[in-house]
């Protein structure tokens, strides 16, 4: 079950183009799209391959492991995120290849660095569904 969080976490807006992805998160699974034609693991999820336009897409369970490609400890922010500063926004490079935008949570801010190993966590949306975030890997 996705776990509750204090961070702003509205239920993601899904569509028929990406429903498989969101349904996976709601079951604590990170499902990624892979093109059956060229093998590309692409981001963001959509029902066709942006590399070769093929419409036959496989969804597979990713490890949920990755490393920080870049990040920013955000001290001031507009809107409802302002009250949650400092918070960490990041691009995580998944072990499967794609670099995805997310947050790093439950982290010692002084330990953050590019290249740090992280793993997926699943945060419950306010009205159902789940959001993909990451936390430093143990050890």
């Amino acid at each position, binding site marked *: 079950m996705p776990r509750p969080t204090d*961070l*702003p*976490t*509205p239920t*993601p*807006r*899904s569509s028929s*183009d*990406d429903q498989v992805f969101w349904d996976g998160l709601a079951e604590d699974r990170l499902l990624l799209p892979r093109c059956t034609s060229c093998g590309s*693991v*692409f*981001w*963001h*999820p*959509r029902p066709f391959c*942006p590399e070769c336009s093929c419409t036959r897409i496989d969804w597979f369970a990713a490890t949920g492991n990755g490393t920080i*490609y*870049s*990040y*920013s*400890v*955000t*001290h*001031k*922010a*507009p809107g409802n*995120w302002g009250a*949650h500063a400092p*918070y960490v*926004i*990041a*691009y995580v490079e998944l072990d499967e*290849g*794609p*670099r*995805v*935008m*997310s*947050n790093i949570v439950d982290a010692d801010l002084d330990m953050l660095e*590019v290249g740090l190993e992280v793993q997926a966590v699943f945060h419950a949306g306010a009205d159902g569904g789940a*959001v993909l*975030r990451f936390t430093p890997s143990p050890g």
Partner: protein
Amino acid sequence: MSIRNAAHIAGVFEHPGRHLPDHTVPGIHFEVAAGALADAGMTFADVDGYFCAGDAPGFGGLSMAEHLGLTCRHIDSTETGGSSYLVHVQHAAEAIAAGHCSVALITLAGKPRTGGAQPGGSARGASPESSFEGLFGLNVVNGYAMAARRHMHEFGTTSEQLAEIKVAASTHAQHNPNAYLPNVVTVEDVVNSPLVADPLHRLDACVITDGGGALVVVSPEIAASLDRHTVPVLGSGLAIKTAGGRIDLTHTGAVWSGPAAFSEAGITPADIKYVSIYDSFTITVLQTIEDLGFCEKGDGGRFVMEGALQAPHGRLPFNTDGGGLCNNHPANRGGMTKVVEAVRQLRGEANPAVQVPDCSIALAHGTGGSLATRMGSATLILGRES
């Protein structure tokens, strides 16, 4: 088809206001249009092509052409964020070369300081990527901060080096009576200003200002008939850089738009006397200077040291109006003022303390969208009437 020498910039105008609570956005579009046409020695009746971007209210070009009383046989509302107005110059030159118009008017206006507009441009409904980027507290600053962090990681760039860029802009802004931030700052001032999104400080960012600007682009025949010094468009390049799960935060679309523009103009970076570089943040300038080929990739931090960017005698004088970092960033879109200051330099009409001697070839570069996601880059190379 090349647009080299196919069109001239005959009129430019930058709204002097930075805080305009009593103006309307359509009213600012009118004021800047009138200003640029007057600068060219022309009138609204001469315009037969109109160009605007996402800042134009209502139905965009249709609403504004009617509001301004234009009779047009060509219209273009290309939207690439803050770089749109450089794209418009290229498109105007193409349209003029094709015979689709002969006097193109380009306008920008907005009120992010007093009008409540959101940074980043127009709302056209949810984008396909929004569910994958809208849940994490992404904003303009922390997006660029991630680009800066990665550049520091790969190349050893420092906050002090980024600060040199703000310092150079501030030394120019002190000579501009309209500058929003007219005071000279030091490297210490920048790195000691509050961290907004690590590693970017408040003074690494551009200003937020009301205002606008406009350009008039005309055929060479019309340029020859005007009393005003006009500026030929020598080359242009456009590029779209997308994220797509493979994003590289250490370069911009200038790696493609720059070579295209230099090639069309038949020159190299060494020929450039002055540059207007899009400066939403210090890191935007640093990456763009590298990508345009003024130094090796990764050497931008060393390149900007020791006053390299300071006019009139630095190695690469930049943004002599004070840029978006200190002078003006109307409607959160800095492309228009980049072209305006380049034209001032080529006409010898920059503020005297920062006028580059014998400024014969200038480059203006725009960055739209975000370094952190997807962007539209546009490079123009402008010359002097022979």
